[in-house]
């Protein structure tokens, strides 16, 4: 924040912006009286939970709001122009010219049927007058792909989006956005769909590009870790209103609003002082020995099938009442491990011992009885409940399959709903009537209805807002105590692992690269890969600064050494 930056005219200014929602919604305005600025060479983060209106603001900047919502008051000025007042031609020059945008899900944001090189070319051809020659355009595409750090641009420009990794796709999106040297980049949750290490690379890339070009960046995020890493200034939104704004130091170190403080506190900190140690019960409940699984993905006729190793001799032990976190990036095989233990996916080799029996040998009724004691909660609470089945039925169906009478099972379902923090009348409603967090509570109630001894949570809180995430984690911790549950907590988020687990296993490409008590793994990681993952935790440097813990009262105890 130098004086020079302060002096420059903002590339984006939003003044008193109100966006009206269609009538009959839960509130009249998606966004109400929001004002902030983005100056050149500045990263401003718009932070809030889902429904806070942050994405609406991002879309208003390029006049990309859906038809059903309108700007009711206020103005947006991008590089001196109000996109809402421009004619079509001028608006098109603004979009992709002075201001470019990237989105959360890079796969769906790219046309699946067009080579990525062509998609970038299109951006150049649309905006550059006079029209550059084919050779110039091609050179420019190569140059852009190189600038965003993509290897082998020649091969890459000929690829289709589905042939690239998530990180590569987002780099392509960024290359496309950069094509016409925009003064403003709007990035709507650009790293939310990416792995933690990829997230760090993409954030660094955005940061480097804005420094190189003096570009203003409006970054929409729900993650205070990301804010701490890249933001110059922060705007905190709640229910469409600005709760507070200021420099990153001001807002993160001394938040004025209670809501901001809550959000910051809800960020899992991966801090030693918070890490729990449970006396481990000596009897192993579940033992996995040398589990192996290779997926063969068919390709063209001539090509041999691609082999993806999901489990390469995984062994682990889960003790009674213990929580074991399995962490790793996407493709590390962590979800497959959970599915294999449940026998939803058949392993190629190895053994799974549960309660003295080898689960892999069990068939028919014996398997059914064993499965009852192993339950799973999936990541997506929207997809994992049957939309046409009442919540009560969804929960009661399990016990009924094991001979409980319907009345009794429904009674139990109501009790469970109350236990997970919902109302008993929820039993008679359908899943779509609930929010994401509430649905995940329903999924947990469903899993617990069979009184399992092992609960596998596969990214069970990843789809939730940070404050809801904290509530669900707290619920799981309580239930674990109460029901003496052993839990396998599969997650890509090391902060969550640190918060909930007794022990941690780090998976990379189907192998265990590190295993140990949570505290040991987080303070003295042995494997280079673990250290890489730990370093990539967004906001880690910031939240680990000595000054930080003393400022926020809730986190005042000794901090972990970094």
């Amino acid at each position, binding site marked *: 924040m130098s004086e020079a930056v302060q002096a420059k005219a903002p590339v984006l200014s939003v003044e008193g912006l109100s966006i009206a929602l269609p009538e009959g919604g839960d509130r009249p305005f998606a966004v109400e009286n929001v004002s902030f600025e983005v100056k050149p060479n500045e990263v401003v983060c718009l932070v809030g939970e889902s429904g806070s209106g942050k994405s609406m603001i991002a879309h208003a900047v390029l006049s990309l709001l859906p038809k059903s919502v309108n700007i009711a008051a206020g103005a947006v000025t991008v590089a001196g122009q109000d996109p809402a007042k421009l004619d079509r031609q001028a608006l098109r020059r603004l979009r992709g010219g002075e201001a470019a945008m990237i*989105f959360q899900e890079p796969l769906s944001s790219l046309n699946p049927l067009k080579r990525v090189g062509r998609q970038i070319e299109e951006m150049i051809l649309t905006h550059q007058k006079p029209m550059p020659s084919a050779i110039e355009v091609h050179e420019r595409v190569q140059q852009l792909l190189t600038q965003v750090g993509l290897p082998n641009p020649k091969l890459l420009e000929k690829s289709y989006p589905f*042939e690239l990794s998530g990180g590569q796709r987002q780099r392509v999106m960024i290359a496309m956005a950069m094509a016409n040297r925009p003064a403003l980049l709007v990035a709507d949750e650009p790293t939310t769909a990416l792995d933690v290490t990829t997230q760090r690379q993409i954030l660094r890339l955005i940061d480097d590009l804005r420094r190189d070009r003096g570009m203003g960046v409006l970054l929409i995020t729900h993650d205070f870790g990301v804010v701490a890493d890249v933001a110059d200034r922060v705007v905190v939104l709640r229910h469409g209103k600005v709760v507070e704004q200021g420099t990153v130091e001001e807002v993160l170190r001394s938040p004025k609003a209670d809501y901001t403080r809550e959000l910051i506190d809800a960020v899992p900190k991966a801090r030693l002082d918070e890490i729990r140690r449970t006396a481990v019960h000596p009897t192993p409940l579940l033992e996995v020995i040398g589990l192996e699984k290779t997926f063969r993905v068919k390709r063209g006729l001539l090509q041999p099938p691609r082999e993806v190793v999901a489990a390469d001799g995984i062994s682990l032990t889960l003790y009674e009442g213990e929580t074991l976190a399995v962490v790793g990036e996407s493709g590390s095989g962590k979800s497959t491990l959970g599915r294999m233990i449940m026998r939803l996916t058949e392993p190629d080799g190895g053994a799974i011992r549960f309660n003295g029996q080898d689960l892999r040998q069990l068939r028919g009724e014996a398997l059914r009885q064993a499965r009852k004691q192993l339950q799973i909660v999936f990541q997506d609470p929207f997809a994992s409940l049957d939309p046409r089945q009442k919540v009560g039925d969804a929960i009661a169906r399990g016990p009924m399959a094991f001979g409980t009478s319907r009345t009794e099972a429904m009674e139990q379902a109501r009790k469970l709903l109350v236990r997970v923090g919902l109302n008993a009348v929820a039993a008679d409603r359908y899943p779509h009537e609930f929010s994401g967090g509430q649905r995940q509570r329903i999924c947990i109630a469903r899993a617990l209805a069979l009184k399992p001894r092992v609960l596998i949570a596969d990214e069970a809180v990843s789809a939730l807002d940070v404050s809801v995430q904290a509530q669900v984690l707290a619920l799981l911790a309580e239930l674990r105590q109460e029901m003496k549950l052993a839990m396998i907590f599969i997650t890509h988020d090391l902060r969550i692992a640190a918060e909930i687990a007794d022990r941690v296993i780090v998976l990379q490409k189907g192998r265990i690269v590190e295993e140990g008590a949570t505290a040991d793994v987080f303070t003295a990681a042995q494997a280079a890969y673990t250290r890489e993952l730990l370093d990539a935790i967004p906001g880690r440097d910031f939240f680990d600064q000595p000054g930080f813990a003393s400022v926020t009262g809730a986190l005042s105890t000794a901090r972990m050494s970094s």
Partner: protein
Amino acid sequence: MIRLGSAATIGLMALSRIAQLVAVILLIATFNFVLVRAAPGDPAQVMAGQSGASDPKLLEDLRKEYGLDKPYAVQLASYLGRVVRLDLGYSYRQRRAVVDLILERLPATLLLTVTAFCLALLIGTTLGALAGLAAGSVLDTVFTVLSLVLYATPVFWLGLMLVLVFSVTLGWLPPFGYETINVKLSPLEHALDIAKHMIMPVTSLAAIYLAIYARLMRSSIIEVAQQDFIKTARAKGLSGPSIVVGHMLRNALVPVVTVAGMQAGALVGGAVVIETVFAWPGLGRLTFDALLQRDYPLLLGIFLILSIVVIVLNLLTDLIYRLIDPRMTTGAA
């Protein structure tokens, strides 16, 4: 991530598919055989009945002559043997080779169905795309209602009404047949004459498919319009038409191609009815007659040829699908 030249991949895929096809065709031939025999009566009965005498001796002689007295298994084996040698046999009734009969009629049917199919696809997708792009507008409502009406109209009824209006009342179009007979025409005039005869049968046949493709394309366009990459295209500053042409159409066509490919076969079936209504000298009419006469070899021959046509169409659909959607070539989607 290096992909082979897509031409080579597609060529190889085609080869392996053809090998599968032979097996499929033999299976279908067996199934057809069993199905045809399952119907009550046989050609000998029909023939003996028509000659006025239900003389058991005549019946037996006829059965012996056509090999119908042998056990089913033997009949089936000899039939499949002939199929493998590409010999479709000899029609009892018409006293001609089945292949000749079919080849004589096939062009007329293909002319009718291919024209109807292409028109239905072209007009249907165009109208559907227009309606989808203007979803919720008056135009959309009109198109949607129209396609619903077309969709619900029985094919033969539409044919009859067209005849009533354009031939009987207005006298603009010939009511039936393939060409005007007993007149000398130059090649161009002859082509125009056939085209004139085609208008009503093609319209009747195409109507329902046109409606299906229009509805499908409409919903497909609406769905694609909501995709994230369309938002990206808008954020890139592309104009409306370039978004439609450059990003929407190809994506929206994928489901239409799938359904169109499956229905191309059904279209040939629909032709049977239309050919009967308009006395169109095609396979449909031939099938109808063969069925009444229990002309086993001819029926089996027609069924087999139609099955092969359907299979080839499906193969073509697969190939086109792969050309449209690169994700299919590597099977990674």
